[in-house]
């Protein structure tokens, strides 16, 4: 009997070779801050298995900054010398997926040309006069 229980436990562990972190519970429905994503690093490192699923169920949106930090976390965990982890983003909505892809592609092939800006330089009085007449 004990052997059977041990065998079953071992089989279950082999079947489920990953841990899952539910982002909506750890952070929020909208993930915007870099610091909170950065704080996930310890949590990911603590996980038993070598694959850690960051589960985005019920996450409505992630900011560009948070997406960048998530990709940095993924890269850092993959390239560690010891206790490497494969971090996977699962159950992502289309919007979350889109943001991760925008940032990942820009990270891989950064835009080299700087945006051109053409600012009209005026003082506050001129601005207010224009606003009054407009």
């Amino acid at each position: 009997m004990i052997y059977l229980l041990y065998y079953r436990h071992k089989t279950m562990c082999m079947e489920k070779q990953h841990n899952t972190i539910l982002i909506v519970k750890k952070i929020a429905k909208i993930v915007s801050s870099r610091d909170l994503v950065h704080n996930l690093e310890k949590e990911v490192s603590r996980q038993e298995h070598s694959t850690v699923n960051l589960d985005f169920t019920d996450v409505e949106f992630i900011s560009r900054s948070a997406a960048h930090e998530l990709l940095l976390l993924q890269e850092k965990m993959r390239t560690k010398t010891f206790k490497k982890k494969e971090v996977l983003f699962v159950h992502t909505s289309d919007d979350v997926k889109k943001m991760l892809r925008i940032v990942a592609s820009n990270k891989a092939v950064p835009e080299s040309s700087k945006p051109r800006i053409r600012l009209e330089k005026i003082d506050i009085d001129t601005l207010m006069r224009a606003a009054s007449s407009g």
Partner: protein
Amino acid sequence: MKNIPILDPKNDNLIQQFGILYSIFTNVGEKEKIHFDLSKTRWLCPIIILPVAAYIAKTNSTFAQSKNETAKAYLNAIRFPKGISSASEFEKYVQETKTYVPISILRRDKGVERENLESMFSGLMYRILGSVSGAQNAVYYPIAELVTNIFEHSKDDVGFIFGQYYPKKEYLDICIADTGRGLAQAYKDETGLELTDGQAIEEVLKGHSTKSQQERGYGIRTSKKVVCEGLDGNFIIASGASALVASQSSEKLVSLPDFYWHGVIVAYRIPKPKGGIDISGFLE
């Protein structure tokens, strides 16, 4: 203590309202205690209310309540000047009042609580504005990026956020403010660059981050693009003695003599979207 009356804007133009903000803080010294006189104020808007609330919090300044019953009720309803700083309080408050959005105070040390409060604020703004396709991202993106900016660059531990939807005029006004080190000082501290406030705003628009990593420096620039080009809105960012006043058709760098905001104020106006929106083209 200096007594500063807060006057009503002449009209609902965002630039006119910014002019009132300028007049309020003209010739105010750093951390100078002020008595804000709202007794004759009849009408208030986010670009005025929020910086005044932030300044009161920073300097322990005082204020005289409006004598106009409607304005007084409104100020009480939005919890001026102290605001609220917890997600549970925000939820309870919104359920009770239905109509008003309170001033929200985001505290760095509150971490997940702060993120939940910001989520609730953004979610409410989106629900109020209407649910056309893509509107969710268009509302969430600038709020998320601009609030993140406060905690990454301002070195301040508190951020202020407030919004008001005007159903008859069909637009949403949002203001986000901090009383931290401001843009020019952030460049000086992080990169050694000595810039004027105007030059610092230009660097922000070019996407030069104060941080060395790639994929930094997009937040303000892309938020402005989403607001002005994606939503046909108006966008103002003020720091120190300069401001950018932008719309889809023009961008003006405005010098603000005898004025100095220690920190950053961002205010923008989004018209109620009539059709689907896709912001992905503005994120670069």
